[in-house]
């Protein structure tokens, strides 16, 4: 029993705080999208699509809310199959736009299935973990989730739509954390992924900037991927390093199990060979995509220019902003992607600090309500869903706000409910509907 009375713990079927925050964000988002494209006319494609997406999103919300969320638990295999079918379908029949095949073009609108899959894969993963019961702390649970989601990630990467993966991964980590898996293994996998990614991305970066090869260290590092002798030498070196570290700590009379040193060595080597494998599999155009990911929306002036322009817009807005439809930075096109990923720059320029703090505050309110609902949920599945959706929104908030304020590197990630993007809006509202469904079927009154 809670020691204090949580807000929304009455007999309501709807958490009004969460609903209010959602509604406020959607309204703010719509206003700023219209302002960003500088139009209120229905003939503007962005305005039209958004006005169509809003009722669809409302339906998705009501759908998520009114259905008992446990249906996803029961029918998780069907849901899983549905996701795979959608993702395979988009690879086969999707339209090819801006370097990726991630859109279904339907008669009245286009749809991005990876957005739906983002939410659905959380539901599926939660269902799987829920079923593991008390065996959750075993490594097998971890591998199980990995194996389960590998096809989904793989299919999304084939589009490729890196941003969906980037967002779902931390959400999954939060989910695992809340499930109670052994975080040591999670950390280990994270490091392995990190090392692999480090090698792959570094080599790709060097490949795209051949002038770096003039530096000897970089040359040797790059040749690791292609020269067997170098590979062998590096492996021996790492092994010796691991052994040396073990010996060193032993001399210091610090008793550390040798298992950790073996493990660390193994992880680095696995990362190296994983990296080599990925590197050899990559084709030039894929490398280009990795680079595009490293510097999204790369234009002649570079990604740094985009962020700078966005920051200029926000800074120029000051405390009170220039007023809706009056921001010069956004209206004259200095802020790139201003109605999607950089919508916050428009908010900042036209509504000022109050606007950005309002959005941030509403987001934090939303996150807090989701956590509270997780706490109040009637069963473990509801709890896990909320944790996963919390992770998803938290990641969105961190990456998008962080990108604009220069706290995290640039990544092309929208801000759900605020940014333009029908599929994103609909799937986000669906996710929030599911959270409301958990609330309405909560255990604690």
């Amino acid at each position: 029993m809670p020691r204090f009375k949580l807000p929304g713990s009455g007999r309501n079927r709807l958490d009004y705080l969460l609903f209010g925050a959602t509604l406020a964000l959607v309204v703010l988002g719509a206003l700023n999208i219209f302002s960003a494209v500088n139009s209120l006319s229905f003939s503007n494609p962005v305005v039209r699509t958004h006005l169509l997406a809003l009722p669809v999103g409302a339906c998705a919300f009501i759908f998520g809310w009114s259905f008992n969320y446990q249906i996803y638990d029961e029918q998780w295999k069907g849901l899983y199959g549905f996701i795979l079918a959608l993702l395979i379908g988009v690879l086969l029949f999707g339209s090819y736009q801006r370097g990726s095949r991630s859109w279904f073009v339907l008669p009245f609108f286009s749809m991005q299935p990876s957005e739906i899959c983002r939410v659905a894969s959380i539901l599926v993963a939660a269902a799987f973990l829920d079923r593991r019961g008390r065996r959750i702390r075993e490594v097998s649970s971890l591998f199980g989730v990995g194996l389960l989601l590998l096809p989904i990630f793989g299919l999304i990467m084939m589009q490729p739509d890196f941003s969906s993966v980037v967002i779902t991964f931390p959400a999954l980590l939060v989910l695992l954390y809340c499930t109670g898996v052994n975080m040591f293994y999670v950390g280990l996998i994270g490091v392995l992924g990190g090392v692999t990614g480090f090698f792959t991305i570094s080599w790709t970066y060097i490949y795209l900037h051949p002038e770096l090869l003039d530096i000897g260290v970089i040359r040797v590092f790059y040749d690791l991927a292609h020269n067997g002798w170098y590979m062998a030498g590096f492996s021996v070196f790492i092994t010796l390093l691991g052994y040396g570290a073990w010996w060193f700590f032993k001399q210091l009379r610090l008793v550390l199990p040798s298992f950790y040193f073996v493990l660390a060595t193994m992880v680095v080597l696995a990362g190296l060979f994983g990296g080599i494998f990925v590197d050899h599999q990559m084709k030039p155009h894929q490398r280009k995509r990795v680079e595009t990911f490293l510097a999204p929306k790369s234009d002649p002036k570079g990604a740094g220019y985009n962020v700078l322009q966005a920051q200029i817009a926000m800074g120029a807005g000051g405390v009170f902003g220039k007023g809706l439809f009056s921001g010069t930075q956004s209206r004259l096109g200095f802020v790139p992607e201003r109605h999607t990923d950089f919508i916050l720059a428009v908010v900042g320029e036209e509504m000022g600090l109050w606007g950005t703090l309002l959005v941030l505050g509403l987001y934090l309110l939303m996150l807090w309500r989701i956590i509270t609902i997780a706490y109040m949920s009637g069963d473990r599945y509801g709890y896990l869903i909320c944790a996963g959706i919390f992770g998803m929104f938290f990641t969105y908030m961190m990456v998008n706000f962080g990108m604009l304020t220069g706290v995290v590197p640039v990544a092309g990630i929208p801000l759900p409910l605020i940014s333009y993007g029908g599929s994103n809006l609909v799937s986000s509202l669906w996710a929030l509907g599911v959270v409301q469904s958990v609330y309405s079927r909560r255990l604690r009154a």
Partner: protein
Amino acid sequence: MAVTKLFFNTRLKKLMILATIAGGIIALRLVDIQVLRHNSYLQMAERNRTQIIYQTAPRGRVFTADGVAVASNAPSFSMYYLGAMQDTEYLTKLATDVAPRLKIPQEDLLNTLIKGARSGKATLLAENLSTKSTVALQELQFYYPGVYLVEETKRSYPFGGFASHLLGYLGSMDDREWRKRDAKLGYRLNSKIGKNGIEKKFETDLKGTDGGVYLEVDYRGRVKSIIEDKKWGAGSDVYLTLNFAVQQAAEEGLRNSLTGRGAAVALDPRTGAVLALASAPAYDPNIFVQYSDEENPAQSKKINEYNLAVQGIYPPASTFKIITGAAALESGIIDTKHKINCPGHYNSGPRVFKCWGTHGPVDFFDGMSNSCDVYFYVVASQIGAAAIERVQRMFMFGRPTGIDLPGEKAGNLYGPTRRARNKTYWFVGDTLNLSIGQGELLVTPLKLAQFAAAVASRGNVYRPYYVEKIVSNQTGKVKEIGHPEILQHADLKPETYDTLFKALKYTVDTGTARRVKIKGLNVYGKTGTAQNPHGADHGWFLAFAGREGEEPSIALAVFVEFGEGGSSAAGPVARKMLEAYFNPPPLPTQTRARLAADYNELFVTGDENAAI
């Protein structure tokens, strides 16, 4: 169950704390960006969206003392294309109509137009256009929307090479100058700045504040609207001490002299103000600021910057006899009535010193008026070289005049003390050479003018100055620049001056300086012919004059290089200058121009001659 719930509970709390901390960091960053850095970002945003078509402001004018604008501004136009009309047919028609007026090939113009129209940017089609074409182009503006004429001004020197060595000229900035005069001071990379003379020295005052047409542009530079049209502010006017007529007479005289090379300087002996300072050959500073659409005669941009009046040093020759005479009078051992026979030569030991003629018995006045060398040889050997050197020092020979002009030469003082300091010997021959102003003695024409003025004012050696004041066109504030400054007083006896005046007037009335004898004036003068071992002799003329019954009000020195004779070459120039001073010709009409305080009216009529 309870244990599990508790376990879940703490993890959820940790997550919420993490989210709150993350939100806090982001909020701090937002405050940093939107509050603390608001001003700088706002400036950047404004810079982003505004493009300025600058309009060069009129530079301050330069006036002579009698109010003639000798450096002013003329209207000039730049033509821009701001339209986004991309219709090739329209652009072709526009190019066909406009190209001949701009004097640029039609294909080039069409290419520029098409490129500009596609980009939507403000495109400069031509700059520095004369009013002649703009009247027609202004009409085309109505037929071709998108064509935009921007009014500017350009420097113009209505009298060509008038006082060019004083005025200087304009030129583009080089890297070093750009570092010194950057955008903060209102300069642009294509701004023209003063490169020499007054244009350089008073650059900061002369430069106005450029106006500009402020355009709102989008991220591709496409023009969205014209925000405002900011009017320029004209630079401050500089007032010189020059007398227009005298300066012009000096320049004309030198141009028409035997060799066309020389210098003429006139000073006001009462103040040291420069009435004229001419150096020939001169140059026309207009060649650096020409219109782009006018047929320009192929002119070499190499100009003669050498200012002979302050940088040329020559022996003063017979004009120096005033000093020798003064030293003799001052010594008291010479009787002016005492006659000395001039057989045409003077024997000094084994050496023979020649006179330029055979004058027979001459007294002091004859000696001066006929410029008899023998007379001064005799006198000099009687009074000694040291006495002559003393008087030289009184008039500050061998020292710069102190005028505010770059590269002034000091000349060379000549005398036994000077020799002693250099640890060499002084010979009798040196005394004789010194007495007639030859030998190592060197002066600039300006120095000699200063000397003439000093004699005219009975001993006041003034520092010459040529800039009176600077008057701001914006605030009306007056900045005084030059003022009379006595450097030294040549303390000779009053009788000495009286006698010198008498002798010099006698020289003009009956002697070698007859050429400057003018009715109604008291003119005092002395000629000089400097022997030149390398070629033809140089001609000198020194004079000062005043109306009858008045103090001398003008003192001048004229020098004609290789002019052969002082009287024949330099005399006519001096006479013209004196005539111009005492009986000035009508000043050039600059009517509305000169008095137009508001530069705007300049563009109303498109009058080609509307120089201001």
